């Protein structure tokens, strides 16, 4: 009996912890967002973060999208060839890439690369008193460190996803034409016929939300890191894990909202 009660108590504590954490994160985000419309604005920090996310993440996102598009084409061919439905492959590739693979893979790549970097940078600033120094220098640390990163994450990821969409389709095209002997013109025609503005738009909306969540997790965990190098390491891990889980959760929720009917 005691064991059951202990289990229920533990479960309750875990739920309360999650609710408390969600509240703290929401408050942190609200404070950071309230600074978006209040001067002063830190344009240099915003531009630097935009370049860091949007430009320096291009190679990893591009390669991921290119190969994923190719894999989708190859796997689809394996299945569809049995039913002589190869003509559907171009449609499958563009549907998968624009709706899911582009936003999710680009998001996961950016979470690993940029979310971790944000958390480590801000966490190091926390444990070396740099954040306290900002306060003593008449600078609101959330406004200076967090707000530009949230805005940059929200703006940069849609751009990366657009690139990922194009390269994902190109990956599928390359595999189909070069390896599976499809007609290039027929593949392009089928791709254009299957291309829906709604799919691309929803993918970009997802990307903006994912970008915000990745930056939020990176900033939140970094900002609250404690205890030197070990604390910064733990914060970085937590930022990437939390961002990845949130990203997949929101991907399901958004897919349900936009495509369930």
């Amino acid at each position: 009996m005691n064991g059951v009660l202990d289990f229920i108590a533990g479960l309750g504590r875990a739920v309360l912890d999650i609710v408390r954490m969600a509240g703290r994160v929401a408050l942190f985000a609200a404070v950071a967002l309230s600074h978006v419309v209040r001067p002063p604005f830190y344009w240099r920090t915003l531009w630097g973060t935009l370049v860091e996310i949007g430009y320096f993440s291009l190679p990893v996102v591009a390669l991921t999208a290119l190969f994923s598009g190719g894999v989708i084409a190859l796997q689809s061919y394996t299945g569809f060839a049995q039913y002589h439905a190869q003509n559907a492959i171009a449609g499958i590739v563009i549907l998968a890439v624009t709706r899911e693979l582009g936003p999710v893979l680009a998001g996961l790549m950016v979470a690993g690369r940029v979310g971790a970097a944000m958390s480590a940078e801000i966490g190091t600033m926390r444990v070396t008193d740099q954040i306290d120094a900002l306060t003593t220098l008449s600078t609101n640390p959330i406004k200076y460190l967090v707000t530009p990163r949230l805005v940059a994450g929200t703006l940069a990821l849609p751009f990366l996803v657009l690139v990922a969409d194009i390269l994902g389709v190109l990956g599928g095209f390359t595999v189909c034409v070069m390896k599976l002997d499809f007609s290039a013109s027929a593949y392009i025609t089928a791709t254009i016929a299957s291309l829906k503005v709604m799919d691309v738009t929803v993918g970009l909306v997802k990307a903006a939300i994912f970008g915000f969540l990745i930056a939020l997790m990176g900033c939140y965990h970094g900002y609250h890191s404690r205890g030197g190098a070990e604390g910064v390491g733990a914060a970085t891990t937590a930022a990437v894990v939390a961002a990845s889980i949130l990203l997949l959760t929101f991907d399901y929720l958004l897919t349900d909202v936009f495509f369930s009917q």
Partner: protein
Amino acid sequence: MTDTQTPKIRIRGLKKAFGPKVVLDGVDLDVMGGTSFVVIGGSGTGKSVLLRCILGLITPDAGSIEIDGVDVTTLSPRQREPYMARIGMLFQNGALFDSLSVWENVTFGLIAAARAGHGPRITRAQARERAGALLEQVGMDPAVGALSPSELSGGMQKRVGLARAIAARPEILFFDEPTTGLDPIMGAVIDGLIADCVRRLGSTAIAITHDMASAQRIGDRVGMLYEGRLIWQGLPSRLFDSGNPVVDQFTHGRREGPIKVDVRN
């Protein structure tokens, strides 16, 4: 009572605990304008917490902190901003911003104050020129301004931190363990620079340290923080002859005495 007799900083009954651990247990302190007060005490006795409470980085549990007669503990963060603009702080490890160059670090507060409307407008070219002058004031070549903080030694980082702290000509300066991690000669150099800057600016200063030589070089008065209270205050010349057994044990570094070192915490 005239203004000259009102302490620049007046602390009464300041208390702060972290969970069951009581760090500050009713600190009372007056620091007169234009003077330097040094707080000494062992590691973990709450010296840094005291400074952080005055700076507003930590909210005290009880007590008041008056700056020019205004209790800043009752002010909102926005109301505190004008007071913060009058304060300069040298952190223990310099706390220079890694992502900025040395000159950007030095003039960060000036640019931030201008942005926030608390200070005069300043262009980046003007800021860079001003940084050069400030670096010269702390005995550094202005060319250092182009370097990154990571390219500097510990002593140079402290000097840059000092240049950043005095950039806005603050009325109040705080120094957190200014000589920690430096060799004795560099420690003396930093102390000399601090004393010189405080005198030149006419600022009120509070420094915390457990370096007795540093305390004597910087302070007009010294106080010892022990078990959450300032148990002794006096002239630096009396540090080694205070008549207080706790202070005497600490300043002479004796193992035996009333101070019991808790090695577990």
